[in-house]
């Protein structure tokens, strides 16, 4: 026996150990990382469903300079980078002396310390006396009056003669100040933080006067709303003590030649105030084209500007029949919906719905129910979020899906609340005149499980609908049309592919000669390698236009091809007793049949146009569009499929996609079904044939039942492939996300949705994450289908493995 050198042995074993380690660790890492795919896409999609976050920045801080209760408060939070320490947080309040107090709230790095509050700026808001109503044109103009900036404003604060009586919030940064003498001004608070190169921050404050309305002599209106409109003018609605509503429209025209501006003021009385009870809430929408009025007995009125510039009443309805009062009104971002708060604390959303010929204001959904009267509703200026304050609490709700985001409830009841224009912070003043400040965030407020998968009543629609539309003021993120599209594509494709693939597999594995079997299998496998972009392109540029021209022939071929087949079989019966025919029956049938099928197609191409002329009036697409089938007596099936209003034939439709997709799926189903059929032991076939069964009987009664789990698995895998196929659908399906079973129009699938929308989706946004959610759905569906198929196949393998 040869003696091996010890060192060689050691080296060999060392190498073996090393290899074992490297391979084991490497293998596990590879497999683990491959499986981590689902983890990553879940990780990206998960924040969609994260709850809204709120963080207390200031909790019940006494404000030494706020001796009297603030009339209104607001906040502005500008973040720079990730950390709050570099953020600029500015709160402000309107006080009766006519000042706006600004507090720069710097948050120190150590979060446990109280942030310091410092008065930076006191600006006098107004310095004019009552103006005679007749001669008011000049003074009432829209003037830009930026207040002093910086920190030196405190000195000039004392000389104003009239006091602020009330401040109403028109939006997150616009306020209507009403003076004790009856005048009113619409102001906008501007806070501009600036950062120099080293990152040091300085803030400039300004209060811009947008519109000014002088007082009437000896009269004070009860309530008023004002709205600045584009081009410099404004609109104002005033409620007088005698319950009459006055409308004042100030428009500014620029003289093109001189460049001077010219003001025009129109005053009119609005006819028919709603009901006979006092008006308790009024609101313009954001561009001033609509005026909403709510009353103490729960009525809602709506006036609209006609194109001629007249205000016309469109609505006067009993909104709440139970005697509750409308206490707060606000137009929601997007300018369509109205948020209504009532004296019972309920916040509800209303907008126009078409009923017959007319459009009526309808209560669409209820949002948060406060425990007491809703005092203010402040819409976000970025999305459909609403801040409402009532019953001592503040609540953030998202309008479209009715999602309640946050309840902000400090230890003492809130009396005032404000919302930052960026929608990232909320300020509150409690009944002890203390300051509360929250940072709030909910980046994906518009997504809930319900809004993704159920019908939602979107603005401007007459009924709740499934809808996907990723752009616009109100993004519609219903996944149902997309999922429907995936299913539609898959079902149509499988209807086309499954019979062809399974029958081909049966023929190849049982009836044809071994020689053909050996050569056809690779051909089909090469078919499987056909890049889907090639199929997509051929469908798009070649097949879709072709089918549009030969549509009738296509449907005719569904009859002529089987007919040709049956005719041929009848003929065959006569000749099959000859020897050469017998030889053909030994596995060459498909060669003979190919020309027969082609003849069937040719007949359809000849007959199609004739039939089109005869039945469809010369153009089948037109016939479909004008609902020609309604002239037929038995129209049940057609009406069930297409309705009675006609079908638009789109060139890129489910039919052409089904052909393309089916073509991509056939090789997969074929290969797997062929494997399953071949795995049945030959002894079973032999036994069946020996007992006198014909070759078809053997196949149908013996082989197919045994192989049925494998065939089922093949269909499953094919289904999975069709669901996830991207390029064919992306190129040939038109990508319109609609729910319609008709084979003549397009659709959008999950996979195509990702391909279509991803280039426009900003990183980390709602759309971006929703597309990851689509990917999660695709992943889970295909993974489940494939796993099921794999398990079935393994069981099949085990069952027949012993033969």
């Amino acid at each position, binding site marked *: 026996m040869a003696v091996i050198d010890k060192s060689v042995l050691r080296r060999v074993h060392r190498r073996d150990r090393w*290899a*074992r380690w490297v391979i084991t660790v490497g*293998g*596990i890492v*590879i*497999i683990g990382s*491959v499986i981590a*795919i689902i983890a*990553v896409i879940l990780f990206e999609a998960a924040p969609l469903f994260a709850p809204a976050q709120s963080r207390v920045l200031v909790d019940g801080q006494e404000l030494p300079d706020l001796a009297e209760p603030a009339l209104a408060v607001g906040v502005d939070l500008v973040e720079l980078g990730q950390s709050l320490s570099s953020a600029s947080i500015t709160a402000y309040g309107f006080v009766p002396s006519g000042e706006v107090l600004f507090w720069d709230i710097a948050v120190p790095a150590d979060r446990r310390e109280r942030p310091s509050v410092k008065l930076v700026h006191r600006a006098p808001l107004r310095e004019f006396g009552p103006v005679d109503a007749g001669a008011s044109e000049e003074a009432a103009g829209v003037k830009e009056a930026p207040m002093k900036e910086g920190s030196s404003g405190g000195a000039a604060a004392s000389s104003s003669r009239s006091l602020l009586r009330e401040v109403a919030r028109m939006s997150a940064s616009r306020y209507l100040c009403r003076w004790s003498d009856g005048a009113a001004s619409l102001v906008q608070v501007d806070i501009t933080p600036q950062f120099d*190169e*080293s990152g040091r921050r300085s803030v400039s404050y300004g209060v811009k006067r947008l519109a000014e309305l002088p007082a009437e002599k000896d009269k004070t209106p009860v309530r008023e709303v004002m709205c600045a409109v584009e081009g410099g003018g404004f609109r104002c609605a005033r409620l007088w003590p005698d319950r009459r509503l006055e409308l004042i429209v100030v428009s500014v025209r620029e003289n093109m030649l001189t460049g001077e501006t010219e003001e025009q003021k129109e005053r009119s009385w609005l006819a028919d105030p709603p009901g006979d009870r006092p008006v308790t809430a009024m609101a313009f929408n954001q561009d001033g084209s609509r005026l909403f009025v709510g009353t103490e007995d729960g009525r809602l009125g709506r006036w609209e500007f006609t194109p001629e510039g007249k205000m016309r009443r469109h609505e006067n309805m009993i909104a709440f029949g139970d005697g509750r009062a409308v206490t707060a009104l606000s137009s929601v971002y997007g300018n369509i919906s109205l948020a209504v708060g009532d004296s019972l604390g309920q916040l509800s959303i209303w907008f126009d719905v078409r009923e017959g010929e007319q459009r009526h204001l309808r209560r669409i959904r209820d949002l948060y129910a406060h425990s007491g009267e809703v005092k203010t509703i402040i819409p976000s200026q970025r999305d459909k979020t609403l801040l409402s304050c009532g019953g001592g609490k503040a609540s953030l709700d998202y309008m479209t899906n009715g999602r309640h985001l946050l309840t902000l409830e400090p230890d003492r009841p809130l009396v005032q609340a404000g919302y930052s224009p960026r929608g990232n912070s909320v300020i509150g003043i409690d009944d002890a005149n203390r300051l509360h400040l929250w940072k709030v965030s909910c980046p994906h407020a518009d997504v809930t499980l319900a809004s993704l998968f159920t019908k939602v009543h979107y603005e401007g629609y007459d009924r709740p609908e499934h809808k996907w539309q990723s752009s616009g003021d109100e993004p519609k993120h219903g996944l149902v049309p997309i999922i429907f599209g995936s299913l539609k594509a898959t079902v149509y494709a499988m209807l086309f592919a499954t019979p062809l693939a*399974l*029958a*081909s597999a049966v023929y190849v594995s049982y*009836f*044809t000669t071994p020689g053909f079997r050996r050569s*056809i299998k*690779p051909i089909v*496998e090469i078919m499987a*390698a*056909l*890049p*889907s*972009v*090639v199929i997509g*392109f*051929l469908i*798009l*540029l070649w097949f879709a236009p072709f089918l549009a*021209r030969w549509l009738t022939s296509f449907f005719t071929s569904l009859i002529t091809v089987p007919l040709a087949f049956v005719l041929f079989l009848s003929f*065959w019966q006569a000749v099959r*007793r000859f020897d050469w025919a017998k030889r053909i029956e030994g596995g060459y049938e*498909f060669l003979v049949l*190919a020309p027969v*099928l082609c003849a069937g197609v040719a007949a359809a*191409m000849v007959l199609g*146009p004739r039939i089109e*002329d005869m039945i469809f009036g010369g153009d089948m697409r037109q016939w479909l569009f004008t609902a020609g089938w309604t002239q037929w007596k038995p129209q049940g099936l057609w009406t069930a499929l297409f309705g009675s209003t006609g079908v638009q034939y789109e060139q890129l439709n489910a039919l052409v996609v089904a052909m393309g997709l089916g073509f991509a799926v056939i090789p997969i189903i*074929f290969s797997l079904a062929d494997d399953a059929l071949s795995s049945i032991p030959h002894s079973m076939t032999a036994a069946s044939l020996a007992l*006198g069964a*014909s*070759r078809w009987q053997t196949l*149908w*009664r013996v082989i197919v*039942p*045994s192989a*049925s789990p494998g065939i089922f698995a093949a269909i499953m895998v094919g289904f*999975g492939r069709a*669901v*996830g196929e991207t*390029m064919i659908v992306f190129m040939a399906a038109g990508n319109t996300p609609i729910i319609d079973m008709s084979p003549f129009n397009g659709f959008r699938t999950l996979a195509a949705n*990702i*391909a279509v929308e*991803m*280039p426009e989706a900003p990183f980390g946004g709602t759309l971006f994450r929703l597309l990851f959610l689509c*990917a999660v759905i*695709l*992943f889970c569906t*295909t993974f489940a289908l494939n796993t099921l198929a*794999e398990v079935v196949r393994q069981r099949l393998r085990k069952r027949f493995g012993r033969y």
Partner: protein
Amino acid sequence: MNNTGRENAQSAAPSPTAATAAAAAAMGCPPPVGQVRQAAQFWLKGEPFVWATGAALAATLTMTAVLLGVVLWNGLGVFWPSPLEAVVLKDGSKLLGDVNDVQYDPHTEKTNIKYRVGNSELQQPFRWVSADEIASIEYPPNALMLDRMRDLQYIGYLKSIEAPGLELAPTDDPPAALAAALSAVRARRDAELSELMAQEKQAAQELHRQVKYQLIRARYQFKQLAPEDRQSSSRGQVLTQRIAELERQETELKNTTDRLRGQINARMQELRRNVAVFVDASGREKQIALLDIVRFCHPNSMTLWAKVKHYAAKVWELVSDDPREANQDGGIFPAIFGTVLMVFLMAIACFPLGVLAGIYLGEYAKSGPLVNLVRVAVNNLAGIPSIVFGIFGLGFFIYLVGGQLDAWFYPDRVAAAEPVFGKSSILWASLTLGLLTVPVVIVSTEEALRAIPRSIPEGAYALGSTKFQTLWRVLMPMASPGVMTGFILAMARAAGEVAPLMLTGAVKDAPLPLDSQFPFIQFDQKFMHLGYHILDISCKSPNVEATKPLVYATTLLLLLIVLGMSGSAIWLRNRMRARYQSRAM
């Protein structure tokens, strides 16, 4: 056959004829006689169903043949110079062009002919003509078709050549004269401009690749300093100097390129004064600078050999040239190169790891439910939609990994909004595709190992070899054809896959991702890809009609690559199977 099988057989509701046959057999009915008997047997035995399955196969194969035929017919015919027809219509108008399409309208029973008449700056480049309207067709021998740098084809007749700067021998033959003028002007251009162009290119490259990014970095570093350090500290001064130096270089290089560009433009302007004057079918004259003419042909008077040469030149242009006119014309070399490079990078990343994982699963992992689960999972990954891999690549590689790498190594570039790794690029596209194809390699490696009869490794163990020795010296050599098959299949899949690339780095127009310095490949570049090119020019092209020929040619090329690769893989696998089967017996 066990119980479930029989139940299935009964519950599967066989077709009525088969059932009748079975019933007849069961009841012992006397079979019919003669002809009738034979006919009945044919139906009762279920022969028609056999024929029906055969029909399905025939349909499938016919459809495949039609599909390949359409691609071949359109793809191969693209470049063949087909005759130019000078058509006079019944209303007296004339057109000159080649037949692009013929459609028969079954309702009106008329034939419509689509002519490509070119000259897109003057008219619609395609024109439908009903066969009835045609009064006469001629084939003028001197009709020319030009491929131009701009505006695609021009079809017309040569009137004269006005080339004051060239010395041309006078000839009577217009094509020969044009050919001579073209080669003369090109020779002039090469002689005068190639040097300048090379200089300009180098300067632009230096400016773009080096000075620009050095400047970004220096400025960023300077900004990072505390404001008080910027002036006083030595580092601040060094950086100030460096920025000044780089800015000086930048202006210098810019001036150089501007000057060179100016010179080039001036010379080009001069060369472009050499023009040829053409007349189109309706008699309009058109001056075309000789430099704008890429090539020309006069199909009506060309010999077969000349046509073949023209065809070959066009094919060569397709595979070797850059695209022109927003991908509507010219070649697709960058797309071919991008595809090959991407597949190559994918192979480097995916093959070793896939083989490692396959060996682990096949030889090292202890078999149990967990490993079985993993095996099923890996098998299934091959069936996960490719777009999911694409979105994974985007979320993981580009935003997570790339963003992190940038944060570590290139904060300056991120600040200048020009991220290096945090954007789609050929690197991330290759890795994404590597992940997509790794299951193919794993599965084929494992199967190749499993196909080896157990007696072989056992023999090796019996001779005292370790596991690694057995693997390395015995199993892997035997499994290598199977592993190779996996490689080729993976490459074929990667070459044909487009969906993930849309999200991770393929674009419609990009320079070659190459560099003159180490590592010679610009990993952070976007790239062109054959499949994406097909998508782009078929879906997003402004003028689909004009680009159709190019799409077909590109498709044919992609099909050749992909089908060639997978065909060879399948052939290899079948051969290997045969080998093991014979050995196992």
